[in-house]
């Protein structure tokens, strides 16, 4: 069974800033310096400001540079640990580094006497460093997390658009349909005319695929138009059983989902069965979710040859992920003589 998680991998990737880039380093140093100013102002003692600020800056700039260097090295690995995990990893790494640096600073101070930086006890100094650094680093990570999410959604959208273009009607279908029409122009001009109208509607729906959602009513109409054209070609070998009365027709669905699945069912299933077969399309409403299943018989020797319809499936998965996140599901089940795809997605109705 091919399931969604494998497709999820590239969607859950995190997007950390490029810590090795000069621009990023400059920003980090500026932020570190700002924090140093804020912290120094908070403990403001007249006359001592510049001395205090220089001590604080020295500590924070060291931290910022070392931290950036480490993040630069671990970024490729961290990004692949998943979106949330990547930021937790960065957080922990930075806080630990901060504490180490604090420890080193403390011992340097003790060693060289002067108490130039620290006038606390050892434990109090570490605790204070820990508290301040966790809060500031957490805030920074939160900011990076939000912008990573934003980039992720942009990437997803771009991918979905590209694959929507790739999923346009199969050339095979187009040429076969034209062949059918060429034949009908003389034997049955009226049917030929209707077939051209249907084909035009179908192409129009395909060209409009960049609008992301459509109503179930429209989506089912496109699929039925497609079915009519295939019926001319395949005759009695093709039958489609629609059991969708239970679905609310105003509900929204990513456009061009049912039609490509019906196309797969015919191309990989019905067309390769000498006596043809029946595609079953079932729609159910369960609580707030809609479930649509498309099932088709497959020739026994075809069941093993997988992968042919991957493009349409990947495309639908991506668009479901983009539209519904983890509230939508696309499952495939394959047996020796049946192939079925189940869609599950929340019912959102368009305004009447």
């Amino acid at each position, binding site marked *: 069974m091919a399931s969604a998680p494998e497709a999820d991998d590239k969607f859950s990737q995190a997007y950390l800033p490029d810590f090795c880039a000069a621009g990023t380093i400059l920003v980090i140093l500026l932020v570190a310096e700002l924090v140093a100013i804020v912290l120094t102002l908070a403990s403001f003692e007249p006359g001592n400001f510049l001395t205090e600020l220089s001590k604080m800056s020295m500590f924070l700039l060291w931290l910022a540079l070392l931290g950036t260097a480490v993040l630069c090295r671990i970024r490729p690995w961290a990004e692949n640990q998943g979106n949330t995990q990547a930021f937790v990893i960065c957080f922990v790494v930075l806080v630990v580094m901060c504490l180490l640096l604090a420890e080193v600073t403390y011992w340097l101070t003790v060693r060289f006497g002067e108490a130039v930086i620290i006038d606390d006890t050892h434990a109090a100094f570490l605790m204070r460093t820990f508290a301040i650094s966790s809060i500031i680093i957490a805030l920074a990570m939160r900011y990076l997390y939000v912008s990573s999410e934003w980039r992720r959604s942009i990437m997803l959208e771009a991918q979905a658009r590209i694959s929507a273009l790739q999923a346009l009607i199969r050339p095979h279908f187009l040429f*076969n349909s034209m*062949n059918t029409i060429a*034949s009908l122009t003389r034997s049955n001009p009226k049917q030929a005319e209707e077939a051209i109208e249907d084909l035009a509607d179908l192409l129009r729906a395909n060209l409009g695929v960049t609008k992301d959602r459509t109503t179930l009513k429209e989506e089912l109409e496109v699929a039925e138009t497609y079915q009519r054209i295939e019926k001319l070609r395949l005759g009695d070998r093709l039958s489609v059983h629609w059991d969708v009365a239970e679905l609310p027709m105003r509900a929204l669905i990513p456009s061009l989902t049912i039609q490509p699945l019906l196309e797969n069912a015919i191309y990989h299933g019905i*067309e390769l069965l000498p006596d043809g077969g029946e595609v079953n399309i079932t729609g159910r409403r369960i609580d707030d979710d809609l479930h649509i299943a498309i099932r088709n018989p497959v020739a026994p020797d075809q069941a093993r040859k997988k992968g042919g319809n991957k493009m349409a499936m990947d495309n639908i998965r991506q668009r479901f992920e983009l539209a519904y996140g983890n509230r939508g599901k696309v499952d495939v089940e394959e047996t020796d003589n049946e192939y079925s795809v189940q869609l599950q997605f929340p019912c959102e109705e368009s305004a009447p």
Partner: protein
Amino acid sequence: MNVLIVDDEAPARVRLRRLLEEDGAHTVIGEAGNGKRALELAAELEPDVVLMDIRMPGLNGIETAHHLNTFENPPAVIFATAYDEYAIEAFEASAIGYVLKPVRRELLDQALEIARRLSNNVLGDVAKKSGISDRRNHVCTRLQGELKLIPVSEVQYFLADQKYVNVFHLNGQDLIDDSLKTLEDEFADTFVRIHRGALVAVTSIESLRKTEDGRLQIVLRGGATDDDDGLIVSRRHLTNVKRRLKKG
């Protein structure tokens, strides 16, 4: 020329027939909706050219062309396809006659002019490039007059018999004129050679048993075995047979 049209889609056949007949130079002597029917008609009507779709249920166009090659006087073959960039490359490379649907009269005429019999090598090449499996799903016999297709999945073993090969399958036995070597190459993943003259389907082997004179004989599923020496495993092939059996 006498042409046999083979396509699983009725409208496609209607159009090809019209194009050929309007021309006057050619006669459509038959139409078949699938590969099996095509072989029967070809055997009966002996067409000069078979004009055939590639993507068909059951026997696809390429497998059907393979079987046509077992005929005494194989007809020339022209493929018709709606769209298949890889197959077209192979057609061009091997100078195979082909037409693209919807078919143009002039191109059909050209293809008919150069139509020729296709060798198995050429067909294998087309199959490979178009991603269609080159392995036959059926073996074909027409030695006893009538044409018969035997699904390879029902074959228990092949036994060389002088000039021919005897096919033992679930519904009896038949003679085919493929060579044992060809069959061995083609079905290497499901059949195993047990002696110089026999190939046995690995899945139909139940066990090995010792005969009275100490040789090893194959017992087929269902308990059947060959009364003669047909299923004796030769010493040379024993290791390989055992290895294949272990693999399942």
